[in-house]
């Protein structure tokens, strides 16, 4: 019985070898990213789900200009009708909520991979990553929330470069990017885990690239829901109002530091605050004022404004 099976086994091996030889070598090195992915929030969960506190910029290589913009920012601005339906820009979107769908487009004749497209459910963030040469939009073309992305495979790692993104944000507490910002990414897949490493450069608001990683878990049965959005007047306002904080000491910006026992100076951020040795410097910083003092100052601001 055993011997009688040998010709069939050899035939199967031969067919298998022939089939393997027909698979393009480059494609064998690529990862298949297609499918539906759930974001994992085991990293930076407080920043990504409930949202960061205002005044918390520690550990980020932000410039003083970025901190100044963030100190001006008021969360009420998000109630302005013209801002309500904004999606996340591509330089933040993979850190946000919502399922991710990835699919590839191939030329129907050559089967060359022409694009990889991504879609995040929240605000329908749809992105095109060009995998074949594609003309870069000229300087007079409009920018977009997702920008212009080109990609290439290096082994089984997808490298992506993105520019022409509208002025946006790196954190939801007002830390800005301007439209000169660019992003380089690396996508890795290990089984059912997809990792996206983002490296964001912004000559005005970052003193060095901001590096973040985001992970996703593959869904066996994926689905993508629509995400319609319509503007409404949530808050009655006169024309032209822009909710903002004015210059000067602002107790509201210090509350995060005082509540969490972090020196106020450290929460302002900067490249040095990313380094482990910065903890030694924090020990030498002056103590924070008591929380009661901060709350009193905040109440005074509110009272003055209500007058």
């Amino acid at each position, binding site marked *: 019985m055993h011997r009688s099976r040998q010709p069939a086994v050899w035939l199967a091996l031969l067919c298998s070898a022939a089939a393997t030889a027909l698979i393009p070598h480059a494609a064998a090195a690529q990862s298949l990213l297609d499918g539906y992915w759930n974001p994992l929030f085991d990293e930076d969960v407080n920043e990504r789900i409930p949202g960061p506190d205002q005044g918390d910029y520690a550990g980020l290589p932000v410039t*003083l*200009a*970025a901190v*100044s*913009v963030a100190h*001006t920012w*008021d969360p*009420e*601005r998000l109630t302005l009708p*013209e*801002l309500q*339906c*904004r*999606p996340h820009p591509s330089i933040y979107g993979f850190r946000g909520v919502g399922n991710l769908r990835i699919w590839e487009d191939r030329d129907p004749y050559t089967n060359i991979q022409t694009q990889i497209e991504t879609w995040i459910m929240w*605000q*329908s963030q749809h992105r095109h990553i060009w995998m074949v040469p594609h003309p870069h939009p*000229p*300087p*007079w*073309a*409009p*920018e*977009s*929330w997702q920008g212009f992305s080109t990609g290439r495979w290096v082994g089984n790692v997808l490298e992506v470069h993105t520019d022409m993104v*509208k*002025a946006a944000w790196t954190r939801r507490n007002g830390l800005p990017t*301007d*439209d*000169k910002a660019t992003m380089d990414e690396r996508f890795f897949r290990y089984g059912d885990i997809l990792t996206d490493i983002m490296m964001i450069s912004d*000559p*005005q608001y970052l003193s060095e690239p901001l590096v973040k990683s985001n992970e996703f878990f593959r869904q066996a049965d994926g689905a993508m829901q629509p995400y319609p*959005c319509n503007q409404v007047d949530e808050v009655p*306002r*006169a*024309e*032209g*109002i*822009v*909710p*903002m*904080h*004015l*210059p000067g000491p602002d107790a509201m910006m210090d509350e995060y530091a005082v509540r969490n026992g972090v020196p106020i100076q450290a929460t302002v951020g900067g490249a040095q605050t990313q380094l482990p040795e910065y903890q030694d410097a924090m020990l030498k910083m002056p103590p924070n004022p008591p929380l009661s003092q901060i709350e009193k100052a905040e109440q005074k*601001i*509110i009272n003055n*404004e*209500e007058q």
Partner: protein
Amino acid sequence: MNTFSCERSGGCERAHRGGLALLLAAAGVLTWPAGAPAQAQTQTPGTGPQSAGSSSTDDWANPNFYATYQGDGQIHPWHAQGGVWLMAGEPGMSNVAVQIGNEGALVVDTGVKPMADKLLAQIQQLAQQQAGDQKAIRYVVDTDGLMDHIGGNAVIREGGSTIVAGNFQFDNPGLTPGASVIANQNVLMRLVQESSSGYANAAPQALWPTDTEDFDIYNVHFDGEAVQLFHPHMATTDGNLMVMFRRSDVIATGDIVDMTGYPLIDTARGGTIDGELVALNHIIEMAVPEDKQEGGTMIIPGHGRLCDQSDVVHYKNVITIIRNRIQYYKNQGKTLPQVLALKPSADYDDRWGHDSGPWTTRQFIEAVYKTLPARGPSFSMLNETVVPATAAVAGGRSY
């Protein structure tokens, strides 16, 4: 057929160059005769009655005040949307918008003079490609009177033609008038004033508009769509026009939106920061994004890339924030040098400011400071900041 309607404050007054313009020029000659004192020859333009209170002088003595052509000599047509194209130039050059259809071409601004011949050739080529032969330039709209917007007026006007009634042709055999050059009346008045006062960089008469009006909204139906001209009051100047192509869903804003820098608020020509903000808010109201605050109405700025409502919202927010900081300091009694030392725009300057060139950050801060009241609203409850509404701008009316 074109249909015109005019909704304005004081009746439709059309000032043809041969009429009011020459009258004003004659008056200017009487005021500044040959051999007038040297200071008269270099008098700052725009210091007539309409700019009372304005003290901007150094700006106009600067020969580089007007944007100069810096590129390789190419004009780049880019389809904005519908029947409208953006004729993009090189850095420093103003944008030109062109609407093309069966009735011919309507051109918004004409760029700088050195590029005019190439601009005309590109427009004619585009018109032929899109609408076939015999499609002439019928209208030119000047969004203001600065030289980087009207520099090509003579060439573009002469390269086009106006369809005229039979009597005119009988009376002037063989004469075909060029395209009609439309502007706000204040533009012509200031150009005439500058010319007659001996201002060294005054625009020659050939660049002046031929049809000027005093209106808030001016409606034309051309190339199968409604074309609306809006006159924002005292924005970057007192003679701004914005053009909305309703079917194409495109707005050409002139210098009210400048994607290359802070708005050039020309206080000598009646510009004010609050008028600028009212105009920006009006653009945001008119523009409708397609989905997720993107696309939809396309906006051709005076300078820089094509944009949509979100880009204008961001621009308006930046300008509003800087305006409010300066008003806040001014309310504290701070002088202009003190405000300049506080750098109220520092966190936006890398993107929008300029240390040199025709419009610097310092000039922008000065213009904002000068045109804000000594005391005014900077914020109200919960740090919401109030920008004066339309009624707060001198001459402002609801659209």
